[in-house]
């Protein structure tokens, strides 16, 4: 019971993009929502333009919970367990979720929801790699299109649309699905490097377009336009020009009067009754006391790792293997994304990549998904790729050095001084198929340092031949494009960029088959009728596209359907 004996209609665990977007729809429908977030509520004045403490942000105040419970990793069940590694960085806790995100808000393409069907139709069943677990989503692009549009309009996404109601738009992405509305804001500026890449890409027959960004290209929603200071990814925005959900969906939900936010409140388990329904959650409050919140509906909307962990920790007589895990599906079909790059130098040229946000760039989807013929290539699916702004000195100094340059001493220093403002990368986001043997479970040994001593998540993950072939293929295309841009010397970054990527998807797959998934197409747990899961954990696949916009669209659709059911008096 809560101290006042109150009972929430809905308890949302985690007020990031998934939870905040759901809260918006549920409170608008009159449901009383209590949101518990493990972190605080921050504001722009707390964000410093300090590369060290914010970018390597586990050092600042942004991620104490996440850092106290870092995941472990093994390549396979017979490999040794070691600390996980991270590419784009670790997640934040707090209202707004990972407010240091890069704000690339791209839609998945229609084909991303039916990879199994389309791949078999075009290349035959034998094209699916051995050991892979490729499925279609239980919902399609048509189901999500209205919700994509709503999220884009409320957020204020800046970009050039490629397809408005079936009509192609010049300068946009020709591979995107139809959209019922264009973007609410014009694209961010085009920087010189973007122009150079765009020319090379068009020259090679590709279709470059500006990154759709959740950053104000012009003033919007009472917030100012971006000043192109160069502190976007890994930083909170110090003027609120970046559209994070603490500035967009949360205030709208609060204005209904139906949202109560409890910060620094860390949920430790979902409680269930004798009838197998969820009864609420136990959580540790800001003072360290364990409290219970009773709720008619529980929505887990934490990050992938924590959503999986909470279900596995919520054991009971009725659910001895963890909640909603009767079929052993919790943690299965998980993958992080790898972020391979090819670096190059434009000798003597000033690129000025220390200006502008990381969402200011030009990308192309010509080699993504099934947008090109894979016949004879030996792999399926692909990657998006492009160039971006935002380079700061520590990151530049720590970046992969060319093979002919030492990593220390006079040669290294000379390389840095001469080339740091002439170096860039073509960055790729490859799709990563799901595999039977890539999964999450609880580490049997390692406990968190939260004071509660709960098991941490153990990641079992390795790269397989299909994904290695995609990376090799896009590296070759990247080198070709860089040559066309005037680059003489190129070199690759790492192939395994990190086991945690901030695009860590799956683990609580949505599907119609109860034996092969955890939640249904409305994100309701198959086994617990008043328990929902939102966030990247429910994704059946991991396309080469940033997931946040789709996380929000899927959550918005599910929340709207939940609210409709509630209104019909389902009497949960």
């Amino acid at each position, binding site marked *: 019971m809560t101290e006042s004996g109150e009972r929430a209609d809905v308890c949302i665990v985690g007020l990031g993009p998934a939870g905040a977007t759901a809260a918006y729809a549920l409170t608008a429908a009159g449901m009383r929502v209590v949101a518990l977030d493990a972190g605080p509520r921050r504001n*722009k*004045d707390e*964000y*410093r*333009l*300090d*590369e*060290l*403490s914010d970018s*390597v942000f586990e*050092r600042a105040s942004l991620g104490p919970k996440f850092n106290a419970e870092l995941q472990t990793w093994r390549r396979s069940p017979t490999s040794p367990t070691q600390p996980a590694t991270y590419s784009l960085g670790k997640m934040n806790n707090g209202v707004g979720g990972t407010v240091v995100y890069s704000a690339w808000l791209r839609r998945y393409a229609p084909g991303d929801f039916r990879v199994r069907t389309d791949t078999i139709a075009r290349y035959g069943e034998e094209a699916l790699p051995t050991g892979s677990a490729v499925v279609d989503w239980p919902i399609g692009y048509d189901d999500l299109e209205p919700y994509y549009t709503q999220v884009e309009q409320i957020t204020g996404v800046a970009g050039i649309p490629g397809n408005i109601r079936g009509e192609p738009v010049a300068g946009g992405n020709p591979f995107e699905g139809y959209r019922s509305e264009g973007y609410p804001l014009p694209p961010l*500026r085009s*920087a*010189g*490097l973007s*122009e*150079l890449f765009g020319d090379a890409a068009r020259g090679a027959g590709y279709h470059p377009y500006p990154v759709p960004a959740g950053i104000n290209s012009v003033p919007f929603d009472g917030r100012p336009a971006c*000043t*192109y*200071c*160069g*502190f976007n990814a890994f930083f909170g925005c*110090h*003027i609120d020009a970046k559209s994070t959900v603490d500035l967009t969906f949360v205030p709208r939900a609060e204005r209904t009067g139906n949202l109560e936010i409890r910060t620094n409140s860390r949920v430790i388990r979902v409680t269930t009754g004798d009838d197998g329904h969820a009864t609420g959650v136990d959580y540790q409050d800001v003072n360290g006391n364990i409290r219970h919140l009773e709720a008619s509906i529980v929505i887990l909307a934490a990050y992938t790792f924590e959503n999986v962990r909470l279900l596995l920790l919520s054991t009971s007589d009725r659910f001895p293997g963890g909640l909603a895990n009767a079929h052993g599906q919790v943690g299965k079909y998980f993958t992080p994304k790898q972020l391979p790059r090819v670096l190059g130098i434009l000798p003597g*040229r*000033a*690129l*000025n990549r*220390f*200006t*502008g946000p990381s969402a200011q760039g030009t990308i192309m989807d010509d080699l993504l998904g099934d947008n090109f013929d894979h016949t004879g290539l030996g792999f399926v699916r692909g990657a998006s790729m492009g160039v971006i*702004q935002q380079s700061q*000195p*520590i990151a530049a*100094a*720590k970046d992969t050095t060319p093979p002919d340059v*030492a*990593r*220390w*001493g*006079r040669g*290294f*220093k*000379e390389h*840095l*001084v001469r080339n*740091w*403002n002439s170096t860039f990368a073509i960055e790729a986001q490859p799709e990563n198929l799901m595999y039977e043997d890539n999964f999450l479970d609880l580490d049997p040994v390692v406990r968190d340092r939260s004071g509660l001593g709960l098991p941490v998540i153990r990641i079992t993950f390795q790269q397989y031949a299909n994904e290695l072939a995609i990376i090799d293929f896009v590296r070759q295309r990247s080198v070709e494009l860089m040559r066309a841009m005037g680059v003489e010397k190129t070199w690759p970054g790492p192939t395994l960029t990190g086991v945690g990527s901030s695009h860590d998807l799956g683990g609580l797959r949505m599907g119609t088959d109860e034996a092969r998934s955890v939640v249904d197409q409305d994100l309701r747990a198959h086994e617990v009728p008043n328990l929902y899961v939102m966030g990247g954990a429910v994704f059946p696949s991991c396309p080469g596209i940033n997931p946040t916009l789709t996380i929000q669209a899927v959550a918005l659709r599910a929340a709207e359907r939940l609210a409709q059911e509630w209104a019909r008096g389902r009497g949960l």
Partner: protein
Amino acid sequence: MSIGSTPAADLVSQAPAGQSLRFFTPHEARTVEAVMGRIMPDDELGPGAVEAGTVSYADHTLAGVEQGNQTRYRAGVKLLDAACRARFGHAFADCGHVEQDAMVSDMAAGSVPPVTGAAEDLDWAVAFFELLREHTLEGMFSDPVHGGNRDLAGWKLLGYLGPQPGYSHEEQQLDAVVVRDRIFTAADYPLEQAGERP
């Protein structure tokens, strides 16, 4: 000069002016500074790690947010000295640049012969080099609030202007020259307090 006979006062005087050590012993500070000076040397292109005070950054960091790395430094300096004594007859900080470069090169390459006490961890040299390199670069190029980048030496070396409030479209074009009155630091934010808006 042998370590035992070095007056502590001399070593302290080599530490950044006005700053006392928070974690390192004077000998550790001198050793770490010497390694960092080889990773990022002072040369005709500009100041290096010694001049930028990266050892102060490491000292601040190890006494603060990276306390978990204290034992790696404490053990690392001992192992490094042992390896240097075995090869050159004296501790790292007392080696000349040629000897120091040879040792750093072996550390980076993982080819330092095993030394007493390191039998259970043959990778100590590579791991210690990587940690030293990371702290050298962070100490060179981080905001001065963290104890390094003295006199903004690291940023000036690169021509970096610090966290400026913003840039124009023209300044984002290739080969555009970006000029500012001064270098900004994190202490300039939030801008409202400084009376400046982007």
